[in-house]
């Protein structure tokens, strides 16, 4: 398993060009092309902010400007959920490669996660623009934590992506199940509501069991509130993420030989 894991590094050129292809192919033939990478999160954000600032008025002064607060949690969540949904189908979609070409299958879920990470990074540009518009900047001192949170999320997402993509080859049900689990997960994570709401505090133990809770809180603390007090939980989550990654890869590696036959 570890020698296979090591060879992942050898595939970086392949992963790189496949991510580039993924991004290129996605918008090929559309009028706006690559601009969609910016327009998509903007549209999503305007829907959410319309609902939560106009229809369901949010008066908590702690989360003003609410659009910005929303964006800090929504952006990483979109990366996470889109990655998992795409990774889940990646082996089946790339079945031709697995069956007909000597191709490292683990590259496919990795590409799904990384391609969505590119969208995430592009979304950060919009987030920065919003910060300028609202004159609401995080202090430079907490920003070094930001890449660490991103790294933890990447490792965690990759681990899940490995496991889910491998299982989907044998159980197509995973795809449908995942869509619903992600909806539940979204609402169970303080993204559209602040984590310090009284109703959240009441079930805090439960919330703390949710790995994405820690990620969302970390992002919001760093980018929105400007003071990071969640470091211990984040480091715990980092350890868990590595475990999830290894477990996910182990499962993937165990089922690898069956892919060419079962895809």
């Amino acid at each position, binding site marked *: 398993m570890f020698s296979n894991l090591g060879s992942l590094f050898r595939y970086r*050129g*392949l992963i790189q*060009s*496949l991510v580039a*292809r993924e991004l*290129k*192919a996605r918008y*090929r*033939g559309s009028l706006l092309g690559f601009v969609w990478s910016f327009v998509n999160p903007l549209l999503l954000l305007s829907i959410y902010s319309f609902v939560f600032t106009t229809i369901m008025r949010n008066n908590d002064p702690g989360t003003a400007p609410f659009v910005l607060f929303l964006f800090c949690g929504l952006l990483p969540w979109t990366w996470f959920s889109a990655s998992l949904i795409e990774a889940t189908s990646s082996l089946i979609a790339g079945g*031709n*490669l*697995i*069956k*007909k*070409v*000597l*191709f490292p299958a683990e590259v496919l879920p990795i590409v799904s996660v990384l391609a969505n990470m590119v969208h995430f990074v592009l979304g950060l540009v919009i987030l920065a623009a919003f910060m300028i518009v609202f004159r609401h900047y995080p202090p430079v001192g907490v920003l070094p934590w930001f890449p660490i949170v991103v790294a933890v999320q990447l490792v965690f997402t990759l681990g899940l992506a490995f496991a889910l993509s491998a*299982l989907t080859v*044998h*159980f197509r049900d995973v795809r449908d199940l995942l869509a619903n689990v992600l909806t539940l997960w979204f609402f169970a994570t303080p993204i559209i509501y602040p984590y310090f709401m009284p109703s959240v505090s009441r079930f805090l133990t439960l919330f703390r069991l949710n790995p994405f809770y820690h990620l969302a809180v970390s992002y919001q603390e760093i980018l929105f509130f400007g003071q990071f007090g969640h470091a211990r939980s984040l480091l715990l989550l980092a350890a868990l993420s590595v475990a999830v990654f290894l477990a996910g890869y182990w*499962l993937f590696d*165990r*089922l690898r*030989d*069956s892919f*060419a*036959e*079962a895809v």
Partner: protein
Amino acid sequence: MTSAIELSNVSKIYRRYSARRFATLKSALLGRSLMRELQPDETFMALKDVSFRVPKGSAFGVIGRNGSGKSTALKVVAGITKPTTGAVRVDGRVSALIELGAGFHPEISGRENVFINGIMLGLSKREIERRFDDIVDFAELRDFIDAPVKTYSSGMYMRLGFAVAINVNPDVLLVDEVLAVGDEAFTHKCLDKFRDFRRRGKTILLVTHMLSLVERLCDEAVWLDGGEKRADGDSKRVVDAYLTAVDQSEERSLAATAGHLLSSPVPAANMFQATEGRWGSGDVEIVRVTLLAHDGQPSFVFQTGEAMSIRLSIRAARPTSDFVFGIGLFNADGVCCFGTNTELEHMQPEQLSGDAEVTFGIEALDLVEGTYKLDVAVHKQDGAPYDYHRLLYTLRVASRSPGVGIFRPRHHWAFSSNVRFR
């Protein structure tokens, strides 16, 4: 000589995935041996204890019927699937032409696909840049290289896939029946490329049904049948052995139909219609028709140019002096290739009685490959049939040399010195 590919006692068991998926997953996690015990009847053995070695720098053919395990063997060598038991060793960089253009993305241009496909096959960006022009020229796609691949015709698609794969410059090239695509000119180009490959000391493993190609291109071959190795070694010898076996099984099926037709005579029909049947007064009867190969053995499959004979066992109910023996040979389209009888050849009948034997000897069966049917008859000089067997016997002419039409004369080509072939 060192070997580039070595298979030792390789078996491959495919599992059939059915409703019992939970058992499959659980056992897949627990281990193979347990799994095999759990589902003994849901397995299919694609390769059974196959061993062969391919010497470095040689071209090696894999032949066999459909479903004999050829492609599985290739996939095992390519590393796409792992053998269930046994070991595979491959020396050097492998490129597999199993499905051309398998990694192409339809939305992006041919140029981008060349790069990504090349990287998938193990080239670096710089290496592809260096070979890019060769690839495009080989694929003959200079004008279309910037169009999305989805606009390509299937031939263009295959050509580009082939061009990339062959320019990966592997040490071992695996080819699975990919020459069936593309026009004649492109096939020739591919073959030239293969030869060029061999000259540079690279190894080719070729899976194909084109036996003549195996004979021409390959030094050695292996013949797989039902997942088992039947023969390996010199390609001509293996192809011969394979063809003989194919002939034999064809012969068995022909023999079965012949027996069937003889045992149930079909009622009389208009003799000018090309339908099978048997009619006549029965005063003289053709009891049995035997086709004999050049060695005197009964056979149903003959080689072009070989001697053969048709032996009729005759029984005359009472002696007669009015008889004509005739034979007619028809091809599968019902065209009469040859027909004659003793009267046409000026033989005056005098006496026929009891059990007799008539043999029609053909010195050289100069027919093109195909299935032929035989008429045999004995009738009166005025044409009234005693016993007429219409198209009741089938024989197959097998040929190792191509040619179309019906007649394959003995021939040779001669050229003046300024005509040259490679």
